[in-house]
């Protein structure tokens, strides 16, 4: 019976490997390379025990613990302890994501597209496809574990022995295998691959959050979350293996559930019925503006949360910065040169604000460029064939883009300030932070204006704004460290903004940039009103 149900799964395994012969190696390579590169980078950046101790201090506040997990061996913060503390959780997330995509693609994904139907019409068992997919994913995770384990050991870093390195790999692999199992279950439950991916990611998010809450306050909660559990292996400090085996045991149990569900159900059926959507549109959905808002809703929410967390994570390290900077020449070199009379933290703040504004520009531009995407997919004609002028269409997207630029900047500062005032002895006031951040608005708007111009005249060249933004990031963020001349930064709007509080406010520059942004937009509108759509 079992043989019948799994008939030909070996052939299917080969088939999956054939289809993913590029995809799988890329995942394995990317995750293991990043891990193996970061370890020596840590060793280089923090060569002395003293520097590492400072880092340990910076990392041991509740916000950081919530983000990266509890630190072990903080009193003797070796490179290994640092690696396990700061990298293990995030790498585990990447491995989980890899497993989710891999499993959905070959189970519900193939089923949804009707490819599995084709396979199942052949002499192939009912469970063969699931078996093949799970086998491939488990093997991929084992290979990844071994590569990372031996790879880290091969670096020859003193604090990273064979046992610890293999445990590091195994911790990652066990998370990957657990999420293989969880995703296999969700692929049985949900009727669409989007649904299966959504549920799996939601589960991953819950695991992360439960662990965050648990790590800060309640140890039991952390043990419930597999992500919390694997961190209890205290890699490179105490090297405890049992959490890995517990996670693997959980995975086996969950896989059995997936098999049972797959055995019971019909092809293309799901146990969770998709909720029927709205039969009518909400009264609000009646203009290009509300449509744009609706289309970008999830992206805006995700970015808002992301920027708030980004702000909080920067804020949570502000407390220990002074001591940390004093000892780190690299970061010192990145700060403005005119900073006499200001604390290093304040100088760091100016650098931070420029980076934050460049990050915050991304969602603002994404929203504008959504309009171009709509045009490319021939959906603008629905709108323009209605009683909608082009000006109104473009304006709808532009208004949201500008609003988003303001909201992102505000949320990041809010996070920065909230976390900063908890950890700093003398917190920087909210108004001071806001003015340091909002002085960058004209630079963000100039990028927005430029995008409007491109949409109006050269819609094919809109990719240029991304290159320009990446360029801005490099020259503004790394320019000083790389000792690039000042004018390179001034090629971007961000380089012209006065760095408050270190610089004085310069109303002329700020006004000129705002005017430039407005003029670019006006020209963009003129072009958009004149050209062919589609």
């Amino acid at each position: 019976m079992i043989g019948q149900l799994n008939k030909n799964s070996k052939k299917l395994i080969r088939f999956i490997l054939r289809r993913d012969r590029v995809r799988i190696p890329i995942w394995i390579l990317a995750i293991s390379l990043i891990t193996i590169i970061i370890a020596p980078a840590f060793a280089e950046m923090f060569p002395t025990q003293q520097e590492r101790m400072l880092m340990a201090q910076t990392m041991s506040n509740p916000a950081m613990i919530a983000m990266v997990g509890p630190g072990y061996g903080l009193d003797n913060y070796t490179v290994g302890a640092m690696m396990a503390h700061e990298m293990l959780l995030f790498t585990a997330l990447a491995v989980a994501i890899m497993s989710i995509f891999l499993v959905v693609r070959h189970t519900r994904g193939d089923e949804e597209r009707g490819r599995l139907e084709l396979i199942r019409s052949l002499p192939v068992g009912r469970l063969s496809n699931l078996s093949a997919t799970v086998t491939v994913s488990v093997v991929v995770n084992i290979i990844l574990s071994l590569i990372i384990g031996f790879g880290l050991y091969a670096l020859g870093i003193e604090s990273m022995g064979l046992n610890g390195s293999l445990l590091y790999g195994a911790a990652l692999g066990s998370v990957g295998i657990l999420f293989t199992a969880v995703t296999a279950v969700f692929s049985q439950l949900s009727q669409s691959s989007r649904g299966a991916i959504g549920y799996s990611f939601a589960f991953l998010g819950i695991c992360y959050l439960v662990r965050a809450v648990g790590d800060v306050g309640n140890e039991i909660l952390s043990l419930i979350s597999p992500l919390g559990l694997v961190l209890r292996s205290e890699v490179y400090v105490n090297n405890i293996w049992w959490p890995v085996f517990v996670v693997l045991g959980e995975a086996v149990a969950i896989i059995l559930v997936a098999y049972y569900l797959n055995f019971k159900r019909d092809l293309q059926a799901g146990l969770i019925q998709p909720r029927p959507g709205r039969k009518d549109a909400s009264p609000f959905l009646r203009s290009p503006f509300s449509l744009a808002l609706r289309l970008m809703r999830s992206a805006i929410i995700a970015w808002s949360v992301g920027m708030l967390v980004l702000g909080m994570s920067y804020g949570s390290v502000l407390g220990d910065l002074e001591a940390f900077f004093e000892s780190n020449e690299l970061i010192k070199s990145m700060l403005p040169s005119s900073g006499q009379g200001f604390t290093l933290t304040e100088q760091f703040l100016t650098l931070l604000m420029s980076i934050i504004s460049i990050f915050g520009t991304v969602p603002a531009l994404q929203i504008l460029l959504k309009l171009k995407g709509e045009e490319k997919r021939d959906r603008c004609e629905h709108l323009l064939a209605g009683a909608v002028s082009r000006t109104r269409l473009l304006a709808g997207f532009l208004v949201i883009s500008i609003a988003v630029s303001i909201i992102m900047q505000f949320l990041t500062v809010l996070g920065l300030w909230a976390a900063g005032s908890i950890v700093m002895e003398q917190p920087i006031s909210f108004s001071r932070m806001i003015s340091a951040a909002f002085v960058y608005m004209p630079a963000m708007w100039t990028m927005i204006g430029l995008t409007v111009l491109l949409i109006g005249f050269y819609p094919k060249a809109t990719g240029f704004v991304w290159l320009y933004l990446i360029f801005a990031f490099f020259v503004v963020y790394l320019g000083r460290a790389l000792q690039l001349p000042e004018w390179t930064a001034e090629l971007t709007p961000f380089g012209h903004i006065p760095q408050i509080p270190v610089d004085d406010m310069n109303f002329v520059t700020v006004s000129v940039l705002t005017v430039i942004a407005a003029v670019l937009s006006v020209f963009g509108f003129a072009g958009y009103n004149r050209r062919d759509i589609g």
Partner: protein
Amino acid sequence: MSVLKITNLTKKFGKFTALNRINFEMQKGEVYGFIGPNGAGKTTTIRVLLGILKATEGEASIFGMDAWRDAVEIHKRIAYVPGDVNLWGNLTGGEVIDLLVRLRGSNNKSRREQLIEKFDLDPSKKCRTYSKGNRQKVALISALASDADVYILDEPTSGLDPLMEKVFQECVFELKSRGKSILLSSHILSEVEKLCDKVSIIRQGKIIESGTLSELRHLTRTNVIVETKKPIEALDTVKGVHSLNRCNQGISMQVDTEELGNVIKYISEFDIVKLESFPLTLEELFIRHYK
């Protein structure tokens, strides 16, 4: 009264001439067929009419207003169904119908419900799960539920099954009976034949034929099937005879309408047993033009 008029319209994309000085005019209350093969310029013409593309030369006007300059004003009174319906994947069909109807500025809830029932659409599903036919239904329902004076339909039935095609035809007749004007682009000829008062045929950016269906047939040929006692000699040399074919019932041919009298006279000498004649279908017209 003319509601839609195109005068010497030329549209170039770079060096490529998509439309070359085309002309046609639609009267109020007419159903106007616009036929041609793919890539002939049907959709380009319609997009110029919608003010989405700008004419290189010539004019396009609806309700006497300029299609480019007065687009918004015009669009309050027209409804449009694109040929290739692309919808927003994460909105439901019902939401899209409402949005599009509202963008035109009208709102007729009861007609919307009737149409959803008639076309048998589940409006609670996300558009990404719809097949081509269902996406087309969404666009059709939103157009038909709008209170418009002119309906511009670009190959509206290309994804519909025969049953739905019939529903669509009923809807068109109903619009016509209410005095609405409809521009219907199609390459489904039986549909144009059933629905349209007038037809323009476009090919490679040029209008090659325009007129009522009877006018067009007059320009062309008649199908004749004939059976005679004596074999007809040298029929292929007779002026005006084309597409000669021997079939079960005798000989079938196409005859130029102006030569019909002479041809019949010639044939009659061979003792006619059976003579059938019928107009060319649009299908045959089409094949002749695009060979």
